[in-house]
């Protein structure tokens, strides 16, 4: 490896480390509460007093409120026959965030919050009158002549799930990270391609057996991906029927999982048959590169888990958990290489 390419590799790794460190120190702090409660309404009277919890915001910063409530299992956002009011206040009472809805997922705009305790209170509003009273007292521009359908206010018993989160607003950082990642990726490809074209060093090749074995590996990877995406099509179709089940994963991460599975099947098959590395290739350097890249990705994934934002809206998606998936997949390669070396040593 030439001095120039070593410098470029070090610069690339340095950039990734800087972004990772920045992710660690970017203002964080996600606070959440969830409450399961059976609500009984009889003759327009609810047996539930206002209920809620207190969340402590530890550092000043930009945050979003995320509120969800639904009946029982989260298969669909099904409304009960009553309205829920939500009020968030701070200790001074100056800050107030009100909301009223049947069943909902809401993400507020970005708000600058001071450190302190924030009280989240849910109100059961079983009648048009209670709904009007709540909205008149808390919502600006509320029109008291608004009449909701009678189906919103009928008696019954509901097993409700309420959740509320105060999440650090990472949208700007996520956008910058995404753009930086794509830019670094393009830059890296351009640099490596330029170096490869300009280099006078003899081109390392695969021998005929390795090419044959790679053909076998491609075949296995292809079959694996056909099976995977066939199953994916069936399962995603079934999961679109809400009465059956709901997948806790978004489509983008499941597609990525399929692509990575195919890539891993190819790589592991090639490694087992000594057809992964070219002749005289610097295996040690590549293994170290795999391990470092994998660990960086896993670290970013762990940061998401620690912050509780590895899933968006309860669904694990590519944006929040993609790093962990890619890191874990990438780690398969050095592990496979090590196992293969160990097996070869025993064979010798």
């Amino acid at each position: 490896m030439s001095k120039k390419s070593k410098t470029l590799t070090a610069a690339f790794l340095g950039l990734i480390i800087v972004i990772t460190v920045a992710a660690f120190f970017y203002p964080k702090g996600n606070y959440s509460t969830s409450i399961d409660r059976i609500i009984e309404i009889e003759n327009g009277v609810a047996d539930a007093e206002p209920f809620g919890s207190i969340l402590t915001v530890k550092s000043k910063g930009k945050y979003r409120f995320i509120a969800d409530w639904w009946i029982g299992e989260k298969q669909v956002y099904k409304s009960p026959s009553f309205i829920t009011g939500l009020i968030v206040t701070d200790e001074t009472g100056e800050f107030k965030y009100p909301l009223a809805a049947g069943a909902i997922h809401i993400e507020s705009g970005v708000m600058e919050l001071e450190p302190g305790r924030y009280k989240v209170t849910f109100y059961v509003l079983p009648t048009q009158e209670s709904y009007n009273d709540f909205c008149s007292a808390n919502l600006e521009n509320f029109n008291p002549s608004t009449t909701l359908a009678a189906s919103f206010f009928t008696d019954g018993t509901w097993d409700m799930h309420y959740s509320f989160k105060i999440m650090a607003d990472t949208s700007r950082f996520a956008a910058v990270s995404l753009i930086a990642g794509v830019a670094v990726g393009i830059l890296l490809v351009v640099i490596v391609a330029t170096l490869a074209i300009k280099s006078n060093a003899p081109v390392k090749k695969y021998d005929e057996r390795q090419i044959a074995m790679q053909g076998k590996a491609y075949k296995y990877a292809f079959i694996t991906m056909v099976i995977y995406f066939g199953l994916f099509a069936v399962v995603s179709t079934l999961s679109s029927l809400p009465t059956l089940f709901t997948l806790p994963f978004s489509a983008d991460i499941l597609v990525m999982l399929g692509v990575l599975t195919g890539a891993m099947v190819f790589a592991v098959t090639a490694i087992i048959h000594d057809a992964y590395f070219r002749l005289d290739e610097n295996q040690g350097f590549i293994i170290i590169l795999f391990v470092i890249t994998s660990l960086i990705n896993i670290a970013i994934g762990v940061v998401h888990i620690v912050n509780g934002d590895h899933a968006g809206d309860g669904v694990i998606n590519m944006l929040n958990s993609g790093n962990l998936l890619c890191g874990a997949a990438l780690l398969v390669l050095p592990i496979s290489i090590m196992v293969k070396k160990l097996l070869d040593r025993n064979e010798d």
Partner: protein
Amino acid sequence: MKNLKLKAARASFDMSQQDLADKVGVSRQTINAIEKGDYNPTINLCIAICKALNKTLDELFWE
């Protein structure tokens, strides 16, 4: 089927699998696979091996 004739010819020149592999431009594992009978080389590789070991195709690859 194992190719013991190739192994013997290589040993007679006191060459390791890696030495022979370097000489014919393949990986050590490929030479190992040929000797173990796990891989049937192309005619080009057979000729290259024969030249490296100063043998004929019949001597090394004909049963």
